[in-house]
């Protein structure tokens, strides 16, 4: 499936970042790669280091010839301030490219919010203006604090599609093993008709349902011109760690194949940049 995407100003924002250098952290990082990560957030990371971010962190550490260590912290509001900001670690494995609170490296993967439906329903939703959305039960993750929402939630909000939403928590009691998976399970069980979920979560938890579930890119919404649905994800370091960022970028570039393999194993839906115009391929296998 080939989908056209808007242009990303990836070079521009990096050029604007202040060129502040700090040697101390880079030196520490050579001996020890201190990663701040969520202790319970698959497919990204967990304390047992089973997430794809854990695997990529191991790869980085081995390339840096550094010992890998973790500071575990729940990834919620205040995460950056309390981790990189408090100098408790040197790198955060996933931030949107250009994220202003950190210095983000060149992105190492590109994914998108996706529609998750049962393949045998043949819903093939391609637009938020599809009238069928008003008749479907739609599952979403409640993410932000008040006033903050996922892009699909906002797209539904501006259309007044509010009565048929089913909210799923990203958090749950310990009795619920993977609370983030519930919204995907609900589609598989037929409790809801469609889930609109961030790609890596959707791909990972949909994997076990094989061909029964269909993932399609949530399209860019013309009513929300400034709101992307796809995000390029980078490593994040302190804004003062320019040299360290460059070192990491070099490794990301050298290890592109291995990183892609890791992401594929976790069934992360990837938008793959191709040469020429910004046209991309979505891989949902």
């Amino acid at each position: 499936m080939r989908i056209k995407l808007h242009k990303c100003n990836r070079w521009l924002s990096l050029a604007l970042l202040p060129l502040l250098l700090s040697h101390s952290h880079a030196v520490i990082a050579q001996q020890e790669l201190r990663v701040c990560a969520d202790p319970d957030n698959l497919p990204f990371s967990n304390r047992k280091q089973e997430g794809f971010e854990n695997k990529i962190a191991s790869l980085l550490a081995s390339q840096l010839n550094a010992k890998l260590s973790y500071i575990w912290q729940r990834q919620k509001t205040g995460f950056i301030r309390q981790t990189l900001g408090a100098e408790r670690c040197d790198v955060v494995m996933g931030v949107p490219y250009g994220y202003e609170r950190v210095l983000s490296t060149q992105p190492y993967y590109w994914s998108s919010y996706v529609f998750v439906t049962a393949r045998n329903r043949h819903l093939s939703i391609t637009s938020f203006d599809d009238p069928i959305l008003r008749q479907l039960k739609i599952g979403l993750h409640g993410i932000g604090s008040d006033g903050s929402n996922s892009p699909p939630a906002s797209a539904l909000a501006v259309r007044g599609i509010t009565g048929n939403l089913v909210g799923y928590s990203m958090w749950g009691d310990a009795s619920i093993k993977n609370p983030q998976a519930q919204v995907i399970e609900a589609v598989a069980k037929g409790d809801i008709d469609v889930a609109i979920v961030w790609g890596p979560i959707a791909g990972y938890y949909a994997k076990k349902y094989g061909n029964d579930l269909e993932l399609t890119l949530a399209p860019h919404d013309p009513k929300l011109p400034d709101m992307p649905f796809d995000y390029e994800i980078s490593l994040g370091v302190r804004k003062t760690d320019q040299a360290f960022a460059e070192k990491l970028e070099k490794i990301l570039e050298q290890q592109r194949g291995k990183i892609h393999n890791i992401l594929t194993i976790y069934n992360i839906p990837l938008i793959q940049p191709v040469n020429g115009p910004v046209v991309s391929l979505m891989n949902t296998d």
Partner: protein
Amino acid sequence: MDIKKRLSDNRKQSGISKPQFVKSRAGMLGAILLGSTSLLSETALATDWASPGGTQDGQRYSALNQIDTTNVGALVEDFSVDTGVKGSHMGEPLVVGSILYAVTPFPNKLIAYDLANKGAKLWTYTPKVNKYAKGVNCCDAVNRGAAYANGKIVFNLLDNTTVAVDAIKGTEIWRNTTADVHSGVTTAGAPIIVNGKVIIGTVSGEMGVRGWVLALDLATGKELWRGYNTGPDKDVLINSQTKLPYTTAGNNTDLGQTTWPSNTWQQGGSSAWAYLTYDQETDTVFYGTSQPGVWNPELRPGDNKWGSSIFARDPNTGAVKWVYQVTPHDNWDYDATSENTPVTLSINGVSRKLLVHFNKNGFAYAFDRQTGEIIRADQFVTDVNWANSINLTTGRPLVNADKLTHTGKTTNDICPSALGGKGWEPGSFTPSTGLFYVPTFNLCMKMHMLKAEYVYGAPYMAMDMAISGALTDPTYTSELIAWDAAKGQKVFGLKEPSAIYGGVLSTAGDLVFYGTQDKVFKVIDARPAQAVNGIPKVLWSTKMECSTVGNPITFTGPDNKQRVAVFSGVGAMAGGFGGGACTGKAGGKVHVYKLP
């Protein structure tokens, strides 16, 4: 000695002789008084500070008057003690007998200091806390204090465990975990102890949880009742006796469910994380709820009850006596977590049992505390523009449509800011002046969407909120105001360039104590007659090593001399808008002041 009688008189008396502790040979305090728990069962002595608000009604007023307007200028530091924990020290220490108790930020240690020995540390209770909670809340993991009754110090750990600790021995008597920290719930509020029940509320409004309050048996820790703040009436504990002012009879069933689209009430936020208060006369517990969550306002059309609401509950059963939503369909994070103080005041010659609440939305409400009817609602800060007034017939604000927030758009110059005209920082009330002393913020904000954030593994577009100086006069951040709740008028005010981010203490010495974020701790004269051109006299101030985000308390030491104490220690969150994070190497401190 008739302790009960003395308790009831404690507002009028001063210089009450203090019950004494003696040290046993083992160095452990043996209880002369605390051992016989009935003596100190429900209410504290006026010489102690045994509940978060000093007294159950949360007036933060003490009848102690040794320190007064004539001598306060000579106040000196008696001693200070370290807590050994960094971060924001919110809430207040407790004093019972000759022990001062401090609960620290995470890992929520309880430390007992000997007031007979310059604050020498007697013991530290270090609870087992779920490590997960640290991850959920980590470095700004505050605690807003403990409560004392029946020989027990009771407080909440961050991981949703409430513990009762033997006030003398420092040993754990019971613990009860009331919510799974994995669900995003944390508890940092102070409990209140009423009729042998410990009443607590949830903290996290932002994590998509559904708020509640519950009661635990003081003796055993067993859960007795739980009332949710959103959902159907049976969950909220609304029954046929409940008064629902400003709703239509016959059409007001399950409003906590029907004022939300679909099942979004299940992640409706509306937690109860600040101070609960209790009115003995009507046997009612009061608290306010935070803003509705977790979806942005356009995704939850409707009033979203009972977010941003004030609850009156029967402490024995949890049943709702009345509930009123202050800000329907809260767009601005105004919530209603500021404390609700029962006072009886004369309005137009008629004595009224009031409940006074200074809302973040910039209006000061005086309710009939038995019915929830609004008697007055008056603007108490200079810039309020989200609503023009509160309609006393409908009970609804007259909202200014220009100040609603919209997805993808910027709304400028909304006043007050999301910090509120007044936030969670508790004010005080002095019976002799009949005035409230209220820490206010003089700030506005702009809100707009569309800022890429990445939380818990998913990018989303966050609301960006920029808080700025007020429109009329941006030269000051905070103002300590004296407020006549009967007339709905400011009587005087002291403008502060540096924010007041902590509570206020009133004493019978006509004094009002509070701190500002420039490390200053000060006293003003409570009497309106002493104010010049509407500005009160500053009678004393001192510079601490670090600012306070706590609430000052007063008590008498074992020498029967009045003391005043306050936490210092500011973590990243509070420091972010104040004077910066600061705690010494040995952590936060409790400063204790006395007359020389």
